[in-house]
């Protein structure tokens, strides 16, 4: 009776968004008379940072300080349509829509400024600090607030923009079966080390090492947060959580947190993450989406690590002590595989 260590590897190609019926999202941007901008979305921020990232994207495109942008996701009845916050699609789909809407709004803002300053709009630029000035002549400048007020009260213009990003529905070629279900992939690789107790069947995740290629990390701390938290959820799916422990039998299904197990703060494993940034050609400022994919590689890596440790191949999640013990029994004991 002893504990066995094993390492498991997994890598994934993760499609951003889905395209089984087209995958559109819209954004509407307008300025208020104080020169601050409102981005209206129906895309919901579940805490993953949708509002932070779209705010950054809008500010960057409009050429105004991030403090001057407010993202309103209050009501999907009154906001422009969005397919939803899922499939890691938010940053990519909504971000692109926000860029398009912000470009249109920026153009009107510069036209209003140009009319006010009696110059050509093409000669104007923003400094990102709330000012619009003539290229090469920073002293010839007005504030974005002055431009917004001129548009609103003198010129009768709405400083606003509309944006939509649509991956069109991809039909299947009847001859070849070929289709283009997705335009943008993120990638990850992970090595997990586990320790398996061959007497109790319990597994402990010792360490995780991963690398994620997420396009440009538009907000590096939010990306890191997603990857750290998501890996924990992956660990939990691999070894703890299930609503159907004996599926298709419904017996012994959990009804509360005493039976629906999740790792607590004492069960987490050190996780070393390397983030690789390879900007996506069709992503907003190169961003992809680190949402769901951060949980995905953990599951196969844990299962492979268990096989490496004791020679038990488990194809049914989660890897419970019962399954490990049954596997050990069937094999006549632990059969550690070669360490790599």
């Amino acid at each position, binding site marked *: 009776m002893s504990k066995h260590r094993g390492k498991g590897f997994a890598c994934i190609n993760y499609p951003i968004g889905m395209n089984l019926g087209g995958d559109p999202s819209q954004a509407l941007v307008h300025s208020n008379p104080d020169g601050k901008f409102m981005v209206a979305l129906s895309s919901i921020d*579940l*805490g*993953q940072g949708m509002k932070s990232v779209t705010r950054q994207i809008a500010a960057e495109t409009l050429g105004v300080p991030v403090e001057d942008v407010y993202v309103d996701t209050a009501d999907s009845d009154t906001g422009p349509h969005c397919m939803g916050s899922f499939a890691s699609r938010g940053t990519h789909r909504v971000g692109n829509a926000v860029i398009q809407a912000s470009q249109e709004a920026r153009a009107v803002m510069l036209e209003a400024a140009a009319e006010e300053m009696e110059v050509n709009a093409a000669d104007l630029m923003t400094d990102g600090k709330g000012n619009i000035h003539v290229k090469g002549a920073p002293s010839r400048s007005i504030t974005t607030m002055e431009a917004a007020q001129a548009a609103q009260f003198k010129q009768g213009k709405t400083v606003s923009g509309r944006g939509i990003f649509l991956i069109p529905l991809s039909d299947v070629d009847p001859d070849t079966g070929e289709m283009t279900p997705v335009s943008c992939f993120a990638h990850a690789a992970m090595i997990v080390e586990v320790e398996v107790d061959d007497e109790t069947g319990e597994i402990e995740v010792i360490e995780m090492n991963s690398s994620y290629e997420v396009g440009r990390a538009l907000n590096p*701390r*939010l990306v*890191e*947060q997603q990857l*750290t*938290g*998501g*890996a*924990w*959820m992956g660990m939990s799916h691999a070894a703890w959580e299930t609503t159907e422990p004996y599926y298709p039998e419904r017996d012994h299904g959990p009804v*509360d*947190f*005493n039976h629906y197990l*999740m790792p*607590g*703060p*004492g069960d*987490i494993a050190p*996780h070393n993450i390397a983030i690789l940034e390879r900007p996506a050609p069709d992503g907003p400022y190169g961003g992809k989406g680190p949402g769901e994919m951060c949980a995905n590689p953990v599951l196969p890596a844990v299962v492979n690590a268990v096989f490496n440790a004791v020679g038990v191949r488990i194809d049914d999640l989660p890897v419970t002590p019962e399954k490990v013990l049954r596997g050990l029994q069937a094999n006549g004991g632990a059969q550690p595989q070669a360490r790599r």
Partner: protein
Amino acid sequence: MAQKPVQFTLNGEDKAAFASDGQNLLDMLRRGVGDLSPKYGCGQGACGACTVLIDGEPCLSCLTLAETVDGKDVATTSGLSSGSGIHPLQDAFMRNFAAQCGYCTPGMLMAAKALLDRNPQPSRDDVVEAISGNLCRCTGYEPIINAVLEASRSGASQPNG
């Protein structure tokens, strides 16, 4: 149903409410005196989202009978900030990205405050132990542990920062 008058202090302010038979403290705080900062998670003491301090001790308010806080001092996340300033723990949570959906955060903050009040220089293991009754779905705990350790270094044990 019998109603029992309960007088207590909530974040230093005198409060009075009627507690009905079997009413728990979480319900009295949220519906009785309107403090919505402690969250209802599981209602059976398994998740820690409802953690408040009673006379400085972290307690699960969903499992505490409301009438038992008569004459006691109750502290919730609402009392952590003073005016426009936020508590060093809240600041550390913010800077360490220790919240995503935020539902566990009030419970985490109160569990962490109870720890720092009695042990201003905790080890990492002390922090893990202190928040072991609190579940978090989003963060993987690591940012929360880091935030509490950082707050301890910045003197979060001082009342109101």
